[in-house]
């Protein structure tokens, strides 16, 4: 059942984003920012965490979930370290995701050659 929930929730988030891409003139960069900020806001409103427990990877993998991750990290850091936590928390929480992206991207660039789009 976990798998099914992850599947349809993740798919729904992607489908809604695709509608934004096709029906509006929003540039991809702006859409990504919208997703991250929305995730952060939903996290602050205590909505995203229960949503993530329900949908698992379907809620944490899309960019919406990244916004929530940022929010959680900052919130924890502020509770532990006070004001300076605003600057510390975001990167600590997202460190694994960002490092993985960098490392795998670099490895891919070593192994693969640039190819034309068909």
């Amino acid at each position: 059942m976990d798998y099914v929930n992850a599947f349809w929730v993740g798919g729904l988030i992607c489908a809604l984003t695709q509608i934004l891409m096709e029906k509006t003139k929003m540039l991809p960069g702006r859409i990504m920012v919208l997703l991250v900020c929305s995730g952060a806001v939903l996290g602050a409103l205590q909505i995203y965490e229960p949503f993530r427990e329900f949908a698992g990877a379907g809620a944490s993998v899309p960019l919406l979930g990244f916004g929530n991750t940022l929010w959680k990290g900052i919130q924890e850091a502020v509770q532990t370290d006070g004001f300076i936590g605003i600057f510390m928390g975001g990167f600590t929480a997202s460190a694994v995701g960002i490092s993985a992206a960098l490392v795998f991207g670099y490895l891919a660039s070593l192994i693969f050659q640039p190819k034309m789009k068909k």
Partner: protein
Amino acid sequence: MSQTVGTQSIRFEQAPYIQSSASIVGTKEGEGPLGKLFDVVGSDDKFGEETWEEAESTLQKEAATLALGKADLKKENIRYIFGGDLLGQNIATTFGLMELNIPLFGLYGACSTAGESLSLAAMAVAAGYGDNVLAVTSSHFASAEKQFRFPLEYASQRPLSATWTVTGSGAFVLGTKRSHLRITGITTGKVVDYGVKDSMNMGAAMAPAACDTIYQNLVDFKRQPEDYDKIITGDLGTVGQEILIDLLKKKGYDISTVHMDCGIEIFDSETQNTNAGGSGCGCSAVTLSAYILPKLEKGTYKRVLFVPTGALLSTVSFNEGQSVPGIAHGVVIEYAG
């Protein structure tokens, strides 16, 4: 004796002849409707180089060399090159034509560069500044995406109104020796901006510029659209074409029966996933060389107006919220008998 006519045009007294032209394209263009007409179709789009930018330089070098060969000329016979491309600081042109050791005027007209380079080359020959002059331009899909949008590795999605930058280079040798083709006049475009801010809909951004130059050409030379067998734009695509015909109708000229667009001709949008059509400096250059000039040579067309358009934005101007201005350069090419 003044050769200027009207406000933006020149009618050449000693009209230069087109000595030869050459076209080199990538694999997608080779698979398109005009595929068999191009001089050279690359087996891959790297053309033996390591980077896309070097590949584009090689395209220019090969096109120029082939055009010289066809005209039976050596590089020492060429007085000037007028050349440009889409990349920042025109690096494809610089590195591509370096070895030819010919005095170079580097140009930027975005996708109108074929028109701009042919105009200036024609002016140079007609005024007696050179017996043989070369005009060359190129574009490459991968290097253009990296320049204007995102590198291919980013795997971004392209909307349906986006055009596909042609991988190709077209080179033209103009000179005083008699041939079947002459450039008899030019109409030089002004920057025209209707305030379009959609960088994914270039056709709409450039159509006003095409309208402006075509209109001025017809007025300056006192012609009607039917005086041309074809009025050929570079890359307005289907969207831009409709807008152009509409804008000109409002000014009293109906070009719907004679209009042709290189971007629409070069790709089959049904099978090749090219959305609104081809674009880039190479689009109009290779189509002119491979498809249009042969028809003029045979006398099928007697007179055409070649008027490629360019979108004069940069990533900086766009990100700073500016609109997309356009320009179009008109070149009148005639069958000389």
